[in-house]
């Protein structure tokens, strides 16, 4: 009994020693693993920085002054801005608005089609881009604003034409469009899901791509609720431009 207790203690000690040794080994291994990981990362950093420097140098070499000059001579023909293209101060800017003189005839106004038609043709494409961007970037702010001003949405083409007459109204139109685009985006996303389920895994990438495009074209399409689909199809989907702020802000000033 005594012997077994003694042996038991010895075994205990040995076990303890082994456990300690194992722990030390585990620790040492982990430390070494981490260290080599750090080392590898550092090597990667060095390699990447060198690669960056290499690419940077290549770009600089390809775009050196002499090369740019050659391109400009052949392709672009840019010239330095002349004095007439600069405005020194507000006074010079204001000088443009000055009436020509006391007896000058009134400026000639050319008869044309309804301004609103022209405005409708010109502005929606611009607004749709802004709307699409605002849609992506500031969803929370948008939903608040939408709730505040639901009446700002033009009901039909006549109202639309009226709305394009001034800036505030145009921006108000942005508000409404954003809501529309959101709705349709959801719809599109649903349809994407459906197609995904149908065509399985291979179609996944395509679906994602079309989903991305759809997000933008949806915003664009909703500018012209009353128009046929052919009218929007002639404008290809553009990538979003990073200028969301003015659109989001401007919508606050809507009547």
């Amino acid at each position, binding site marked *: 009994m005594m012997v077994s207790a003694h042996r038991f203690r010895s075994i205990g000690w040995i076990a303890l020693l082994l456990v300690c040794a194992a722990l030390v080994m585990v620790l040492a291994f982990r430390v070494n693993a981490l260290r080599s990981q750090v080392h590898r990362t550092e090597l990667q950093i060095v390699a990447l920085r060198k690669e960056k420097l290499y690419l940077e140098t*290549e770009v600089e070499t390809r775009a050196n002054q002499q090369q740019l000059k050659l391109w400009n001579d052949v392709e672009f023909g840019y010239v330095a801005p002349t004095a007439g293209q600069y405005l020194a101060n507000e006074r010079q800017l204001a000088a443009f608005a000055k009436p020509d003189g006391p007896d000058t005839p009134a400026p000639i106004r050319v008869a044309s089609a309804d301004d609103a038609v022209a405005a409708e043709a010109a502005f929606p494409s611009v607004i749709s881009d802004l709307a699409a961007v605002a849609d992506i970037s500031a969803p929370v702010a948008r939903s608040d604003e939408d709730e505040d001003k639901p009446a700002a949405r033009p009901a039909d083409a006549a109202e639309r034409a009226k709305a394009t007459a001034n800036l505030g109204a145009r921006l108000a139109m942005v508000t409404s469009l954003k809501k529309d685009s959101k709705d349709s985006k959801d719809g599109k996303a649903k349809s994407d899901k459906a197609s995904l389920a149908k065509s399985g895994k291979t179609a996944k990438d395509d679906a994602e791509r079309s989903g991305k495009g759809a997000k933008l074209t949806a915003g664009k399409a909703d500018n012209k609720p009353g128009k046929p689909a052919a009218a929007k199809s002639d404008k290809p989907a553009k990538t979003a431009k990073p200028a969301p702020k003015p659109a989001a802000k401007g919508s606050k000033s809507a009547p």
Partner: protein
Amino acid sequence: MNSLTASAAIATGRVQLANVRQSALVTARLRALWIMLLFIFATLTACVRIAQLGLFERTPERASLAEALLPSRGEITDRNGVALARAFASYSLWFNPKALGEGGAPLVKTAEEVARALVGIFPDADYADLVARLKAGKPCYLRRRVLPEDANKVFALGEPALEFPREEQRFYPQGSLAAHVLGFVDEAGKGHVGMEQVLEPRLLDPVHRGTPTALSIDARAQGALEDELGRGMMETNAKGAAGLILDADSGEVIALASLPSFNPNRSDLAYNDLVFNRVSNQVYELGSTFKPITIASAIDAGVVTDLAVRYPATPLQIGRFTIHDSHNFGASLNVPEALIHSSNVVTAQVADKLGPVALKRTMEQLGMNERPTIELPARGFPLWPRGGGEGGKGDWARLTTMTVSYGHGIAVTPLHLAAAYAALVNGGIWRPATLYKVDPAHLPPGRRVFQASTSARLRQLLRMIVADGTGRKADAAGFRVGGKTGSAEKPGSGGYRKTSLIATFAAAFPMDKPRYVVIVMLDEPQATQQTSGQRTAAWNAAPIVGRLVPRIGPMLGVVPDAHHDVDISDLSPLVSSGEGE
């Protein structure tokens, strides 16, 4: 006996047994002690190691990261951080005849075919030399620096013997831009000619080479200067051209070009005459561009107080020497007219009144009697006219004073002229030119050469020369350019050569508050159709400035303004219209 023996034997057996037991016990205890010591030692070691790892272990090899990214030679950038010279692992084209194994042909195709293909990729390569090297079967460089796309083309030839080791070399991304400022690095890694030589200790110092060294050069302005100079040189079939843009207030060299130039990327070809720097190393008689300096000196000294005073403009006889003008400008001219038409006769008379002492002092204060102050190693010593007295250090003779007044008999570098014009227009302070970027708050101390009022007057006069006089072709709209033409005949054997000119235009802009001095010089321009059959500066150097200033002005922060100009209303009535040099 037996029993005794037996009992003795038993007794010893017992004793032995006891001893064995004793020693076994001792051994066991010793072993236990050893094991315990081992345990304690192992535990302690583990504890110490844990403590060491946990407490004192540093992030491994932090220093090596910085070391790995430290370039072998520091980077040189322009004032805006655009890399001008960089240590860069670029491809070389190396011929390794053993790539296909020992014995047998080193190339798949014949040497002639490979050489022909290589010449197709590198049009400047020497076919015969390539064939010889490929046939020799010795490993060697076929080309030192190869563009990645060219390397790809060579790779597409499918010759395993053509290898592309990447080697750290000095690379100039902007090509030959500012070649004379930068210089080049030879194959041994030693800098030559320009700032590569001057900055060598700093560029190689491990402490400093990690951070780029910024020069005062602006790569965009440098590009525009070289481009316009090259165009002017081509249009006039000139032998060479030099150009300089200097910050009028700080003395920083914004651009410095000497054409024809060399390509520092081909250091193997860089040892040639083109390395010679016309801006800082070659001295020229710069002719009429000296006239404003003389007039400024005279105004400053109070010799010319009334600009309306008229001087006879007929040829001036001094001893056996006659001073002529290029045209006949009538019986008399006043000082503004003399500058506008560039009259040697009137300037000589003003200098005569001023006297040799004052003119010489002005020239000395403008640093015309010593090498130009710039960091470049190649700086030319001016041909300073000998005075009378011991060692030629006395006063100049009367004729010397007169010829120096219109830039003859004294030969300086274009850099001297630029620094002098900076002093002329910036309020009268001369500052040494520098290629280092200068902090505007810590301008180097200059020395006052002209009074501020003299400088203001000269700004008017220089502007008038461009507005109404010989410099009209430099009048870039809205930039208020002022300047002076100078067309000096080059001295040859047997006097001055009528058809070999140095055409210079020294300008500054904007004249209402001069920021930059521009010097453009053409060496032996020819009369061509583009210059309307003329070879004087008004027709070849001035138009270069007229094209250059609108290109560099907006980039250097000078906004063109058509409604703004120097007020020359007090001088305009003094000038009647007429043609000049």
